[in-house]
């Protein structure tokens, strides 16, 4: 034994890289499989959604998707040489199926970068609006639609793969500070006369909403630095002060004014999911006449949301960064949730210039959100009124 120990020569040889990578993947898979069996809840008993799925989903999840997305956005914001723009954009249009006859500017040299072209507008009148009560908010493909089971409160991502409605839209957490009112900038949106809007679109508002406006913060009342409020993990002193000022002024959150997500008698909850492919027009419009009362910004991952991924990753739309817009229409509760993806991590809202998505910095705990209310946009309607097919915002590269 002593001889073998001292005299046997040590022969080193390289382990193939693939074996090492496979070993790491297997270890990660075992670790995540064990985690998948646990249901993690926060201090309020609300389930915290974690990454679950087959091994290749975990491999993708291990990538720095948010950094990749921002790098992608930066690269595509670089100004292209004027001579190259028509060639490059025609090539892009050919690969991804864009109809160049519809774009606002016939002269493609007008678009300075791929990001600029990606966020293009369309010519006036190329998208006629159907008189139906609900129209498509975007160009894309219907992934799924249906009704939501009133007791299970789950939404089908694709057939057989569900996620929680509460996780998607967020729930009010007891004890959390009131949401920050957004300071609406003058002329940020076309002015809509509140009475006409309500009369034409059949929006009902209560006497309390009409008369209770003295408690509604305005841009003059509340010297708020809008934005990121409310989450206890945000330690910006200005924001803490703003919330304190709002409390002193007696500003109450308008949460109670939003219709409940529980439908009234005779009504049901419905959902639809629309996927926008890379070549599609990437601005989104109002799908109906409604009032946006609040927005909840969930900072999350930026997985691809392609149908391939939607079929493999449960809770995809709950894991990804998204902006849940909550409000009301003539039939009660209404919400619209633009969900970001790796290539399009930036979500823009025309009526909310302060919203910033896919930014660097410390990320809040999973499942938490920052909330803002649009009560200052319209005192009578208690939110931002939108008419059918009105442009609301869009997705930008990176």
């Amino acid at each position, binding site marked *: 034994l002593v001889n073998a120990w001292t005299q046997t020569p040590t022969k080193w040889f390289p382990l193939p890289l693939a074996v090492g990578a496979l070993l790491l993947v297997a270890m990660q898979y075992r670790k995540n499989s064990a985690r998948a069996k646990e249901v993690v809840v926060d201090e309020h008993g609300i389930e915290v959604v974690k990454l679950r799925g087959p091994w290749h989903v975990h491999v993708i999840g291990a990538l720095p998707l948010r950094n990749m997305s921002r790098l992608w956005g930066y690269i595509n914001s670089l100004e292209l040489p004027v001579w190259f723009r028509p060639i490059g954009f025609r090539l892009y249009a050919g690969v991804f199926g864009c109809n160049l006859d519809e774009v606002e500017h016939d002269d493609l040299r007008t678009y300075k970068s791929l990001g600029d072209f990606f966020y293009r507008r369309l010519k006036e009148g190329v*998208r*006629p*609006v*159907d008189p*139906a*009560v*609900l*129209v*498509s*908010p*975007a*160009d*894309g*493909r*219907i*992934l*799924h*639609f*249906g009704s*939501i089971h009133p007791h299970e409160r789950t939404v089908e991502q694709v*057939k057989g793969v569900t996620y929680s*409605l509460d996780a*998607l*839209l967020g729930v009010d957490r007891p004890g959390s500070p009131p949401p920050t009112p957004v300071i609406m900038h003058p002329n940020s949106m076309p002015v809509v006369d509140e009475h006409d809007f309500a009369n034409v679109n059949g929006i009902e508002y209560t006497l309390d909403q009409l008369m209770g406006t003295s408690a509604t913060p305005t841009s003059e009342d509340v010297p708020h630095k809008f934005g990121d409020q409310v989450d206890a993990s945000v330690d910006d002193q200005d924001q803490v002060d703003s919330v304190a000022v709002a409390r002193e002024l007696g500003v109450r959150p308008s949460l109670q004014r939003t*219709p409940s*997500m529980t*439908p*009234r008698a*005779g*009504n*049901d*909850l*419905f*959902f*639809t*999911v*629309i*996927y*926008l492919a890379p070549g599609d*027009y*990437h601005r*989104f*419009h109002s*799908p109906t006449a409604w009032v946006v009362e609040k927005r909840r910004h969930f900072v999350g991952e930026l997985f691809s*949301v392609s149908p391939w991924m939607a079929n493999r990753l449960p809770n995809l*739309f709950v894991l990804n960064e998204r902006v849940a817009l909550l409000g009301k*229409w003539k*039939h*009660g*509760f*209404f*919400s*619209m*949730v*633009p*969900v*970001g*993806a790796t290539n399009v991590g930036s979500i823009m809202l025309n009526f909310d210039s302060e919203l910033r998505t896919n930014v660097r910095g410390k990320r809040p705990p999973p499942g938490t959100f920052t909330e803002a209310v649009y009560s200052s946009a319209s005192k009578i309607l208690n939110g931002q009124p939108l008419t059918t*097919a009105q442009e609301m915002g869009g*997705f930008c590269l990176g």
Partner: protein
Amino acid sequence: STIVLVFEAPADFEFSVEAGQKIQVGQKLGDV
């Protein structure tokens, strides 16, 4: 990117689309 709509409507609301169908802005999604 994806857009999810969740809304309350009368129980007789009917979608006028099919899964997998291509759709454009302003096209009918459903009606009461």
